[in-house]
């Protein structure tokens, strides 16, 4: 394997053993960007000079014989809705195209304490609204397995960079599947931690009660390491949980014997791609073979999850995005006669179609006279969905199902049909509504050789068990060693 193809834990050992330098590694990744970024277009901002400087600093440290932390000197990408002090944070929106945050998100502060090399900011659906990264106001990212296909979304840039070798690791954010689904589409590992496990301070809000930051990596081991770094209570985020963070790498054991794995019948829906169903069923058989006990379970309110999600998330988005009005930061439309016109023109001109659609849905759902019928009802159904999981977890330790109903599809194929796009989220949004952790690990390929992901869902704050199942499954296969054929590779 080439350097840029290696997972972080291998590269870390190579750095410690002085087999490579961080500069060599960083230059290899930057060279890979030169080679393939024209097709993949995973990045909105590339901080080349800073990356080189960071790498050199780490090398000096290693040369002095100092110990280095896990991510030290290893290049990664940050989704462009995570605030990075001094570097643009655009959320792939024209309204923030020149916005530079004057502060670091809490995850950035935690990461920077590790001295990683930050390659740049990754493309995404505008304000994380979408499942294909086609809603970026700036560029469409290609799936490294077939650049005519979407990488998934909204963290499509992050997943594509890791799959293309233009980043060793990445951070994404997941509101309705935005980490897990692109990980599934790009053949990498992506985890949405329990709501509150990772601080949201500095994550530009889409839907506050659903958003969660998580790692996108080449394998489960890297996922556990990065989760260790970014987790924990943050006084700046009242909704972050005040629980001790375990060492997640301790969960990396090959053992699922006697573990009860639930298979929710509602997740194998009609219209599911047969290749997806087949590979996921094979993965379930594999888990059984490895000693897990497979139980069919029911999550009866699954059918309502998408409707619930598409009321709650737009309602929160409508208020969260109200701040982009052209008054004190961001873009401002010219030639407005008065204040109202200035705000209206600004928002009309600089916000994208999907963003505007969700703002309208959200404001409608919150309006006097409609609130009870839509928003309040959605909150009640959300509780029922959560109760479905609570009941299921009385019987089982983890729940396993597909991450997405289809593999990656062609760019432009679904973008004109928002409703069809929303249906893509059927397997992922229930977790966000219930606040539960979930991981997507590669489990095979479609007949077109596009990756398919297996989703493993855990109890709240029980990332350890899903990591254990994911690791055991991963080690029984070799999908995590496969790489997209791209460029000269």
């Amino acid at each position, binding site marked *: 394997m080439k350097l840029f193809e290696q997972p972080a834990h291998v590269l870390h050992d190579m750095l410690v053993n002085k087999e490579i330098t961080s500069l060599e590694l960083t230059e290899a990744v930057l060279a890979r960007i030169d080679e393939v970024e024209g097709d993949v277009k995973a990045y909105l901002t590339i901080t080349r000079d800073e990356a080189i400087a960071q790498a050199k600093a780490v090398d000096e440290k290693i040369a002095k014989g100092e110990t280095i932390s896990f991510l030290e000197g290893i290049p990664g990408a940050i989704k462009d809705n995570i605030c990075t002090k001094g570097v643009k944070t655009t959320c792939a929106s024209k309204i923030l195209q020149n916005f530079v945050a004057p502060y670091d998100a809490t995850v950035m502060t935690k990461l920077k304490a590790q001295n990683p090399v930050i390659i740049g900011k990754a493309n995404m659906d505008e304000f994380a609204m979408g499942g294909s990264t086609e809603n970026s106001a700036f560029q469409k990212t290609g799936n490294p397995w077939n650049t005519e296909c979407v990488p998934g979304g909204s963290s499509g840039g992050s997943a594509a960079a890791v799959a293309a070798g233009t980043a060793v690791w990445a951070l994404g954010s997941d509101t309705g599947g935005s980490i897990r689904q692109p990980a599934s589409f790009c053949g990498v590992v992506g985890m949405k931690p329990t709501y509150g496990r990772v601080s949201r*301070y*500095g*994550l530009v809000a889409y839907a506050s009660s659903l958003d969660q930051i998580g790692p996108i990596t080449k394998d489960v081991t890297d996922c556990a390491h990065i989760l260790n770094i970014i987790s924990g209570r943050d*006084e700046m985020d*009242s909704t972050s949980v005040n629980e001790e963070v375990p060492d997640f790498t301790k969960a990396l054991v090959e053992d699922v014997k006697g573990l009860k794995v639930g298979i929710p019948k509602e997740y194998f829906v009609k219209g599911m791609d047969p290749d997806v169903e087949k590979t996921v069923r094979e993965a379930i058989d594999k888990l059984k073979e490895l000693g897990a006990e497979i139980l069919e379970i029911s999550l009866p309110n699954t059918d309502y999850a998408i409707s619930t999600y598409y009321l709650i998330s737009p*309602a929160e988005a409508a*208020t969260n995005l109200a701040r982009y009005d052209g*008054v004190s930061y961001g873009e401002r439309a010219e030639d407005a006669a008065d204040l109202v016109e200035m705000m209206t023109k600004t928002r009309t001109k600089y916000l994208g179609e999907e963003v505007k659609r969700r703002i309208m849905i959200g404001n409608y759902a919150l309006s006097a006279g409609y609130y009870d019928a839509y928003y309040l009802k959605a909150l009640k159904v959300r509780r029922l969905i959560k109760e479905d999981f609570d009941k299921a977890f009385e019987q089982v330790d983890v729940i396993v199902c597909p991450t997405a109903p289809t593999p990656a599809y062609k760019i432009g194929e679904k973008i004109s049909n928002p409703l069809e796009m929303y249906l893509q989220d059927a397997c992922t949004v229930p977790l966000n509504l219930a606040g539960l952790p979930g991981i997507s690990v590669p489990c095979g390929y479609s007949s077109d050789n596009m990756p398919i992901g297996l989703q493993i869902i855990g109890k709240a704050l029980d990332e350890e068990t899903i990591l254990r199942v994911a690791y055991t499954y991963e080690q029984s296969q070799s999908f995590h060693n496969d790489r997209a054929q791209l460029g000269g590779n």
Partner: protein
Amino acid sequence: MSYEAVIGLEIHSELKTNTKIFCGCATTFGAEHNTHVCPVCLGLPGVLPTLNKRVLEFAIKAGLALNCEINKFSKFDRKNYYYPDLPKNWQTSQYDLPICENGYVDITKSNGETKRIRITRIHMEEDAGKLVHSGNTIKDSDTSNVDYNRTGVPLIEIVSEPDMSSPEEARLYMEKVKSILQYIDVSNCKMEEGNLRADLNVSLRPAGSDVLGTRTEMKNINSFKAVEEALTYEIERQEEVLEDGGHIIQETRTWDPDRGITLSMRSKENAHDYRYMPEPDLVPIITTDEEIEAFRKSLPELPDARKARLEEQFGLSAYDAGIITSSREMAEYFDAVIETGADAKLAANWIMGDLSKNLNAESLEIADSPVDAKRLGEMIGLISKGTISSKIAKKVFEEMWKSPDSPEKIVKDKGLVQITDTKAIEEIVDKVIEANQKAVEDYKSGNKKAIGALVGQVMKQSKGKANPQTVNQLLAQKLG
């Protein structure tokens, strides 16, 4: 037809926490524009609020002092509307689960009647920033700037039931609320700085009816005088409209204090739909019985209890006790005067009289009085001992206002000690009788009032220092 007014108030009070409600920025008033700001109160992308615990403490204390029930489960909500002084374009406030509900205060009217004004609710919220226009208003300005220093300063909004029926009652209610907030030390209540401001709602209905009429609202009234004047004007205006057979339009009106009139601002037809929603970035507020009891125990003696105590303990009249306890500072000043051993009624008279007069003349707060409680107490002690007369005391007080000397020193230095030596006074009395035969004759022929002139002469010649009682006794004796 005769009408009665129905008045309800929404009082906004800034809480005197050191830092803002959801971030660590200072709340200091009058700083240079946009110097007390951070990403959180500026509403930058990605920021989250964290509740300042002191705000919760102060709101609960206010609720307890205003006889409210404390909701043990409370939450914040987003009140959505677009305005440039509101950086997120929503105000974080409380909608259906405010921290306090169902309270009341009692007011005492000038006719001595007591009335209970019910309080519907008290909720916590953040203040907005301030627009700074190049012209007078946003409409006639080429540019407007926003000062975000005030953005996120904590407020409580105290909403009354429409229990008041006159401008006087509204003013007394607001004065009482102000006094209580100051007693419990949760707000500076500096009305000129906008710390305390009220929205006034008023409607009329035929006297005796229990149906509410259409109301109008006047926002951001920030003086007691304006509360009374604006309501008086608005009640008269509504009365005229109704008398002429017209209808009151439900609307917001502004009070123009210079012209003494209210003006239509915007009608409720275009009212905002605030699209309230629960604030997902803040966790619900859970308060335990233990916490509530601890806050209750930490409250100081409140105005009503203190007034009753002054009446009972010192025999002050209800009126005097009411004035003395109307502000915590004055009540504490009174207590400090009493602590020197001074007579309570004299203390009350001096505080309400000369002290208040001098403070008002120089626009000073009692805390900044040049004559502190200890010196006033000592001076009152000199009166009680007979060292100085009440009349001389006024001179001593004026000297004390100008110098830091003790009253004893002033009396001694200025030779103001009262002459109680009968012999010395007798000499003056004799001289005065000698020199004023006309008055003596008048007195003897039955005009007993003539003695007044003679007493006056004696006092004048003794430079006010003769003990008036002794003078009276001696004159009566000598004139037989």
